[in-house]
């Protein structure tokens, strides 16, 4: 992927196009796709200015709309987290799931679910635990993957992937340990959540998560030009006035927050944060001022599409969304890995 910009469509145009596509799909997904496959909603009612019947309205307000919105928010959050991680580690293989950040978030959530009786798990407890777990995992992975003092802040591919493998294995083992001791009801609820996918989200939870994702995104956008300077390496970044270490710490926190918000809604959903940043850079280059808005929209579109496919492909049965993203993500990962190892990607 070269940085050639002459023939490229402007980033704002891509952002606008994807935004329109997302809005269109959101409308279709809300209108045409029934959650359990049995009730088809007629969503032309906003056009006809007459209200739908009560059942339709209830389904719409309580189930479909939140699910569609949650998919979009989760996709956006995970994509921006991936874009950020790939930027600060200066490595195109970074992804919240592969690096074990989602795993860290998941572990803490499972732990708390095992310790606290279900009804006491408030809307804030799951995201809070996920945040602590994700941030801890991010810091550990970056510390493990950091090369010597001459690595210039560039984390090696091998270091990152191995650190991710270790963290993921550790988190999985500990989760299995906890799951094995759960009673059947807790076990069922928790396993469903872990499989990845948006099923039920309350409006309050959705609102809080939307606000937090937006806040994290604005904080990142305000630092976009500093994130760009990380491409110079630590010393040169400092010589243009950017404190690379501080930016790395802030980014680890924000990537942890975004991942945690995604995980708390959709469980361990992989590869969204890997695929979207690559597509985005292909369309808009590597300037964070352009890629951050595009990643937000492209992530929402990808997750919404994946969720719709998961619901429709074998309706009335549902696939876990994680299956769809993995089917897309694994080939992407293989291609990227091959490019890295043959030295055609960014140097590592």
């Amino acid at each position, binding site marked *: 992927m070269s940085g050639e910009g002459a023939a490229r469509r402007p980033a704002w145009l891509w952002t606008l196009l994807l935004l329109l596509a997302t809005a269109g799909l959101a409308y279709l997904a809300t209108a045409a796709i029934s959650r359990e496959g049995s009730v088809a909603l007629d969503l032309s009612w906003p056009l006809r200015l007459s209200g739908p019947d009560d059942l339709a309205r209830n389904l719409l307000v309580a189930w479909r709309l939140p699910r569609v919105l949650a998919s979009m928010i989760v996709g956006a959050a995970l994509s921006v987290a991936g874009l950020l991680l790939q930027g600060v580690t200066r490595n195109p293989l970074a992804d919240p799931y592969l690096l074990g950040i989602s795993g860290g978030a998941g572990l803490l959530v499972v732990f708390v679910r095992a310790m606290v009786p279900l009804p006491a798990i408030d809307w804030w407890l799951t995201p809070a635990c996920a945040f602590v777990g994700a941030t801890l995992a991010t810091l550990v992975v970056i510390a493990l993957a950091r090369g010597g003092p001459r690595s210039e802040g*560039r984390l090696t591919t091998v270091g990152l992937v191995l650190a991710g493998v270790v963290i993921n294995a550790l988190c999985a083992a500990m989760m299995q340990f906890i799951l094995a001791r759960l009673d059947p009801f807790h076990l069922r609820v928790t396993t469903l959540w872990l499989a990845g996918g948006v099923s039920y989200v309350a409006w309050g939870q959705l609102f809080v998560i939307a606000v937090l994702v937006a806040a994290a995104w604005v904080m990142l956008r305000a630092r976009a030009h*500093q994130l*760009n300077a990380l*491409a*110079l390496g*630590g*010393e040169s970044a*400092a010589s243009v006035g950017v404190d690379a270490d501080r930016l790395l710490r802030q980014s680890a926190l924000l990537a942890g927050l975004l991942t945690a918000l995604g995980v708390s809604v959709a469980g361990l959903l992989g590869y969204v944060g890997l695929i979207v940043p690559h597509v985005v850079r292909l369309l808009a280059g*590597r300037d964070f001022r352009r890629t951050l808005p595009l990643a937000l929209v492209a992530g929402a579109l990808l997750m919404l599409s994946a969720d719709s496919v998961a619901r429709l492909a074998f309706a009335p049965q549902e696939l876990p969304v994680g299956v769809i993203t993995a089917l897309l993500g694994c080939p992407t990962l293989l291609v990227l890995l091959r490019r890295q190892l043959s030295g055609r990607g*960014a140097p590592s």
Partner: protein
Amino acid sequence: MSAAVLHSESLAWGYDASAPLGRDLQLELEPGEALAIVGPNGAGKSTLLRTLAGARAPLDGRVLVGGQDISALSLEQRARRLALLPQDEAVDLDLTVRELVQLGRTPYLGAFGRLSRDDQSAVEEALEACELAPLASRALGEISGGERQRARLAMCLAQRVPLLLLDEPTSHLDLRRRYELFEQLAALRAERELAVVVVLHDLVDAYDAHDRVLVVADGEARVVARDDREALARAFGVPEKRIPV
């Protein structure tokens, strides 16, 4: 006389306070002046340059840039007063030349990083000065090592600072490019009163293109005149007849 661009007082530099690489350096650099730093490998030339740039804390003494103690400046304030071109090329090769040069404006950008007209013109001017305009949209990985070096220099120029600190800027350049680099630096010194400090290996380049030459060897740094062949031979540990100037 205008104030010194760069000033050091009893400066000691290195990694270990009990065994500094050099000490007691008094240095004063006027606008438009050029200083070369030479010395054998491992004598601490680059470490001295980094200390002068504020990238390393001095073991003793202090460095003043434009009359202000460099350790009291924030990274951003420092980046508006001096530009450092490190030796290592750690920059991502999929950046384009223009993107790289634009990064030189980072210390001037407000939140959200919008480039003002002033920023744009600084970037175009730097590209022009380094004859990079035709390469502006090429990725760094697609151009030669010499062109890449010029692009990195252009980034420093885009910072529009009164002081340039360059660590072995000639290392990837052939004879002609080396000549052109020093011509260009001379022009910048004359036009903009830019002061430059350059770490070099080549003694001929050092004496031909600079006002003073600072020789760093055996724990001390002092200005050595061109005809003092004995001092140069001693510093580099070679017989006098091997000194090329």
